[in-house]
């Protein structure tokens, strides 16, 4: 069962081949057996999952099943889930049980999905390897010595290992696309404002966006149908009609204009990754697309601008973790300042503290104009680069990451870790959507092709990805541990 895509599982459930309960029990058994090593979940919720599954089976028996009814999903532990531990991968929230559901969680419930549990992640979504989790690193299902990517590393690993057919992730600088690439699955970062942020523990509010992670673009489209749309509780969510994301999946690609940003094929790109990506582009040409080079001239400013804006917002967003009302509180504080200092010093990990410090510094009097203001100006230029490119071409393609998954513990220096996100980070600054699809392997580790479109072009992106998946089978490859029959 765990070999099937979400779309195939939906058909099997509908055909009565097995029930949602049987499917859920099977996955829970796999999690119990395999996840001790993989560590892709922080919290597994078997009782809830089985109750959800039974409810889904009952709904189906009444003839009330929708397209997602009874389909299990894993939820990145950054989404608040009512009555369930919601940790953000941090010791700070190791005891936090959310009293409410995030909009995405609420919508997935309403669509009849089965929640298996909460997936591991880099603490507060800050990281590119999932090594920053207070609950331990996650292993890459393709190679236990490699990282799964981050920050949605648990979500990506769970899907790749066949522990969940789909998962919810969030992407602030590449946190859906890069782990999807590292784990050989498909992950979509929607347009900023397309999916509600209500109930997603904030890292950098102007960049955070939730999206689906699954085996195929078609599966992502199904999930988008459930989660996308305006939410009055999120002022930055856009009041704009939601299309049926599966509707255009059959459209032919003849005449599609593909742009290859020269800046995404420059120094630092692993030649083997480049070769895989160029091969994928050749597949598109064979499908009738035309290809040309374009330039995104401000690309090299994206990482510096991001590491001003994101930490600035994070330093403010994370101020609420002060030991007063919820979360970690130090033992026997001597006074208020001691309570603040020790609660935060003990509760936050290294990388989170680093970003809080950076953000606090860049917002300080005398530095604000030089850093934050300048970064916002750069952000506008970066956005304009993309808008200009989309005047010329329909989509942009390139590698999701300069290398395949690197070894656990390989990146000790934070800056070399930050450079991992060189192709993904500008996308968040511009607010446009992007998808990563499996496009080959380098030394047994998956390579991801990143496809970018203009604002609200998710329908087109998903079809472009889908057509590629009709012509190739990279997305169907399974790591060894997912190929077991039980």
């Amino acid at each position, binding site marked *: 069962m765990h070999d099937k895509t979400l779309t195939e599982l939906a058909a099997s459930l509908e055909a009565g081949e097995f029930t949602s309960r049987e499917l859920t029990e099977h996955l829970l058994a796999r999690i119990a057996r395999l996840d001790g090593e993989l560590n892709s979940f922080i919290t597994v919720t078997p009782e809830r999952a089985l109750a959800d599954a039974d409810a889904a089976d009952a709904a189906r028996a009444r003839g009330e099943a929708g397209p997602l009814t009874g389909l299990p999903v894993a939820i990145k532990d950054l989404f*608040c889930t009512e009555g369930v531990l919601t940790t953000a991968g941090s010791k700070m929230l190791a005891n936090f049980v959310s009293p409410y559901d995030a909009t995405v969680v609420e919508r997935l419930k309403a669509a009849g999905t089965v929640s298996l549990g909460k997936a591991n992640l880099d603490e507060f979504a800050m990281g590119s390897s999932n090594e920053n989790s207070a609950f331990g690193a996650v292993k890459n299902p393709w190679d236990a010595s490699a990282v799964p990517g981050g920050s949605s590393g648990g979500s990506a690993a769970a899907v790749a290992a066949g522990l969940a057919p789909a998962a919810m992730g969030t992407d602030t600088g590449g946190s859906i696309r890069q782990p999807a690439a590292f784990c050989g699955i498909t992950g979509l970062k929607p347009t900023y404002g397309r999916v509600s942020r*209500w109930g997603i523990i904030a890292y950098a509010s102007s960049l955070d966006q939730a999206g689906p992670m699954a085996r195929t673009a078609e599966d992502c489209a199904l999930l988008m149908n459930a989660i996308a749309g305006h939410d009055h509780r999120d*002022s930055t969510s856009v009041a704009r009609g939601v299309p049926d994301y599966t509707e255009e999946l059959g459209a032919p690609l003849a005449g599609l204009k593909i742009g290859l940003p020269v800046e995404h094929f420059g120094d630092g790109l692993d030649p083997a990754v480049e070769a895989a990506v160029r091969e994928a582009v050749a597949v598109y040409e064979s499908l009738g697309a035309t290809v040309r080079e374009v330039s995104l001239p401000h690309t090299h400013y994206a990482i510096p601008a991001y590491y001003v804006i994101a930490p600035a*917002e994070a*330093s*403010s967003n994370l*101020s609420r973790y002060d030991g007063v*009302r919820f979360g970690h509180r130090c033992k026997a504080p001597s006074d208020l300042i001691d309570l603040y200092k020790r609660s935060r010093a003990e509760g936050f990990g290294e990388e989170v503290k680093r970003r809080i410090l950076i953000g606090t510094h860049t*917002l300080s009097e005398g530095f604000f104009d030089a850093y934050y203001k300048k970064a916002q100006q750069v952000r506008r230029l970066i956005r304009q680069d993309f808008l200009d490119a989309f005047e010329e071409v329909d989509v942009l393609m390139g590698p999701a990451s300069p290398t395949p998954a690197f070894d656990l513990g390989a990146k000790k220096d934070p800056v070399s870790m930050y450079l991992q996100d060189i192709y993904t980070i500008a996308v968040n600054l511009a607010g446009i959507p992007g998808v990563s699809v499996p496009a080959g392997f380098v030394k047994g580790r998956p390579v991801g092709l990143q496809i970018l479109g203009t604002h609200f072009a998710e329908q087109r992106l998903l079809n472009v990805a889908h057509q590629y998946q009709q012509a190739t089978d990279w997305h169907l490859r399974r790591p060894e541990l997912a190929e077991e029959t039980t």
Partner: protein
Amino acid sequence: MQWETVIGLEVHVQLATQSKIFSGASTAFGAEPNTQACAVDLGLPGVLPVLNEQAVAMAVQFGLAIHAEIPEVSIFDRKNYFYPDLPKGYQTSQMYHPIVGPGEVEITLEDGSSKRIRVHHAHLEEDAGKSLHESFSDGMGHGMTGIDLNRAGTPLLEIVSEPDMRSAKEAAAYLKAIHSIVTYLGISDGNMAEGSMRCDVNVSVRPVGQAEFGTRAEVKNVNSFRFVERAIEFEVERQIELIEDGGKVVQETRLYDPERDETRSMRTKEEANDYRYFPCPDLLPVVLDGAYVDHLREILPELPDEKRARFQAELGLSAYDAGVLAASREMAEYFEEVKDTCGDAKQAANWVMGELAGALNREGLPVQDSPVSARQLGELVGRVLDDTINGKAAKQVFQALWNGQGQSADEVIEAKGLKQVTDSGAIEAMIDQVIADSPAQVAQYRDAEPDKRGKMIGYFVGQVMKASRGTANPQQVNALLKEKLDALC
């Protein structure tokens, strides 16, 4: 040396919205601690603010009322600092692009002169919660602090003046003018005792004639008209004394202690926080289109200045009377109902400012809590105007209504038999009796010079009124007495 005082005020007005500025929780005052704070007010992980449109409309109405510029775009910023009653670790406020631009407020001083005070801007922000230091302890002698977040997220309009005031009296008059505008607009209950209006006062002194401002001290959280005056007076005296003794005023934040009637240093400029303001990424810029602002302008109620002018021009009231009656919306509404009921503005003004205001003052009641309703008072004044009762009896009726003895003036007049006697036969009979009972006074009257007799008639009037238990028509009594006494001369 002669000193000049320079004062600027930051007035925090709690807006009378149903729910909080960024959440759906209620803003009602006085609920059990932490019962009116939802997930957003508590700053739980993952929550997001949604701007309350009512708060925006109220802020814009205030701007229109002070003839301010209303910028097309305003932006919310985060003011970052740690405090236990600040759940998110930042206050959402407006630093760089406030909702209300420069405007002005006219104040009237006790001598009847007026002055314009410029308003620099007004911005929207959320209130913090409250720290409760009293009555918390772990039972082992360790003090504890309780946090009540009911107030967290209550919408505030902070109105920042230019340093245009030159005395404590001007500052108090300005604060009263702001109070009067916000209560007229109905955008705040203006209740200072419950903290609906709070004020930070910036005070400095400089030698008369000097152009530059002196170093200022900011006095925080002054919460009554009287305390504003007292705090300024204390602060001015302190600063002058300090300078004259060779010292220097330091820029600092001070706290006014009403119990000891003094200000005390809280923190100096060096200890001030760096608030790290930046635009709140969870809220979109507020864009106000012209039609929306025009609509709010159209539905603005009559404001204190306009009402005062109308009371003078149309009702013929004196500047002083018009000013007193227009000072609060409740007083003005009460007066207008009395006037409409009795039909005579001047009489209505006399009664409202005389008998009513006196009674309210004695009992310390605001006009909206008056036991005598405007309609009752209007009817009472009407009975004086139509000669049903005389002025003296009217005061008795007022007192009876005040004490709850009767539903209407007519009912009290009937019950107490206060209806004025205008039957000249009855009055003549009483006069004849008084003349017969006062031979000595009659003799004095007769012997007096004719031009002195006018004064002497008072005695006889008094006797007749007494005999009638105050119900005889005094004009009739006067005329008939004169006639009869003069006939004896």
